């Protein structure tokens, strides 16, 4: 008999799609938040829709608070959608187009809510002025706010977010992210964010899952996975742009991150390299340089003061992780 305590969300699934087979497994407790990060077409959305119970699983199952939501288990019937306690924000946004913004937001509230509470939620979503507008009259960012509000107002235990802020102005994202996290904690819920924006993933969640071509490559702390990607593919996906053979081990590489390279030789802070600057271009307030290292490998680095193009200079890769193929 399985005596392990029930986790709030248990996922173990295989979904066969035409282009890719999606295979993943993880568990989340109440209050935990996971970001699923990967390229387009990696199977992120399929994972979310599977957890919501809307995708036929080739094998495995999904449980919310111990109750079957998706998959086939002998002697058990999967919960009807209305009992799953799952809130889903899709990408592209799916609003109820014939209803107003306010009617959309309160749709999942079964008992008549206090007017002041709805007004406060609409205010925090930045939608007070549009409460009586319909979806078609809204911009992409406003539609995303409505979809997020509709999910947050419902009585969920698992919150599934598929790129929920991708069309929202950068300036407004922080407030909406905070609202999402607060509400999720109030519901004592588990949250999953799907995104291809690493900064967004780290800002939302404490855990990070890296998905590539349907497979879960790495699952760990949101910062830990980036600092210690373990394999070359994970390193590439989280932004490492160069790989220099590590002299200490066969078939292992130092992974070079553009933001973790310093000009000059500082051996106590990392690995000292020598490279030729091939090109320099502005990068926000800084500069991005393409460098060819002595081994012939190229990588990019972000610096405040760019060296002259063609210059041979000493560089320090700051504590570069060692990765396997």
């Amino acid at each position, binding site marked *: 008999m399985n005596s392990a305590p029930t986790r709030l969300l248990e996922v173990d699934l295989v979904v066969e799609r035409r282009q890719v087979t999606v295979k993943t497994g993880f568990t989340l407790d109440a209050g935990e938040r996971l970001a699923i990060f990967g390229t387009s077409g990696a199977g992120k959305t399929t994972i979310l829709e599977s957890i*919501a119970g*809307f995708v036929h699983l080739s094998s495995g199952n999904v449980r919310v608070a111990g109750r079957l939501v998706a998959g086939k288990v002998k002697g058990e019937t999967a919960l*009807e*959608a*209305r009992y*799953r306690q*799952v*809130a*889903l924000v*899709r990408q592209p946004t*799916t*609003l*109820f*187009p*014939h209803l*107003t913004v306010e009617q959309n937001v309160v*749709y*999942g509230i*079964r008992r008549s809510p206090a007017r002041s509470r709805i007004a406060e939620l609409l205010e925090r979503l930045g939608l007070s002025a549009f409460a*009586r*507008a*319909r*979806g*078609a*009259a809204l911009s992409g960012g406003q539609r995303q706010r409505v979809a997020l509000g*509709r999910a947050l107002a*419902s*009585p969920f235990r698992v919150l599934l977010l598929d790129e929920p802020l991708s069309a929202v102005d950068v300036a407004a994202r922080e407030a909406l992210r905070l609202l999402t996290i607060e509400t999720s904690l109030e519901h004592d819920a588990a949250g999953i964010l799907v995104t291809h924006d690493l900064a967004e993933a780290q800002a939302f969640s404490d855990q990070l899952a890296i998905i590539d071509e349907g497979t879960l490559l790495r699952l760990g702390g949101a910062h830990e996975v980036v600092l210690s990607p373990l394999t070359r593919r994970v390193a590439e996906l989280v932004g490492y742009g160069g790989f220099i053979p590590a002299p200490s081990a066969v078939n292992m590489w130092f992974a070079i991150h553009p933001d973790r390279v310093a000009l000059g030789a500082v051996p106590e802070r990392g690995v000292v390299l020598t490279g030729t600057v091939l090109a320099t271009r502005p990068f926000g307030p800084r500069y991005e340089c393409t460098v060819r290292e002595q081994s012939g490998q190229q990588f990019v680095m972000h610096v405040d003061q760019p060296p002259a193009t063609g210059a041979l200079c000493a560089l320090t890769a700051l504590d570069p992780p060692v990765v396997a193929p």
Partner: protein
Amino acid sequence: MSATAPAGNLAASGVVPGFPVAGRLVARGSTALALLGALVIWLALLGPFAVLIQHLSFHSIRAALGPPGALEPLWTSLGASAVALGAMVLLGTPLAYLLARGRLPLARIVELGILLPLMMPPLVIGLLLIFLIGPEGTLGNLLADVHLTGVNTFFALIVAEFYEAAPFYVLGAHAAFASVDPRIEQDAALLGDRPLQAFRRITLPLAAPGLATGLATAWARAMGAFGAVVIIAYYPRGLPNQIFIAFQEFSLPGALPFALLLVVAALPLPVLAYLWSARTRSRVAGTEAP
């Protein structure tokens, strides 16, 4: 750098590279031709209505519709069409929904079955219905057990109208349901709706304009059904049948008042449905202020 109109905008801008003036003339000419074509088709479609009004006099209308019992065919047609329409909604709506959601096995075969009455001449349908529900027919025997007869009865009229009109409703409803994204039904279910609740709160309002158009078309077809009706339900006399008989007995002037009556009785619902669905569609699409 010189600006070049993208290929897709050439027609709109009226510019043909290398031949600017000729291109503009061609564009204007084709627009004028299209407008002329539209006008001709519109006039051609409206022509019969204009002629109907032109050839009717108040006197002829009173002479035809004045005598006692003259309006009986109208009540018969209205009654039979209303019942046929009710049956279509009751049976056709779930069928159309399941077809649109791909939940029926052998969906293509089912669709073909719905199309079949549309593709068959109504007269042929009438003949075949005699074999099916007539006194000697397979179902006819069963109907006799419940004291129904499938020939020359009000019931037969309903069945004939149903066969002629139902495909229009089912196909219209199928298209209307297919236009509703199934993912938003899932969203409603996740937000706590039972399947029927989600259908009532989300699917039905969104499909309503298309359903109304399908219903209106079916109503017009049912009211005007003649081919199958004249074979299997010559009596009780509905309006189309009355027009045919009046035409045979009194020629054109005798038939036209009944034709007007049929138009007046059959047209308001489709026109209202069209106006309502156009307004609802534009409201949901956001082209009209809420």
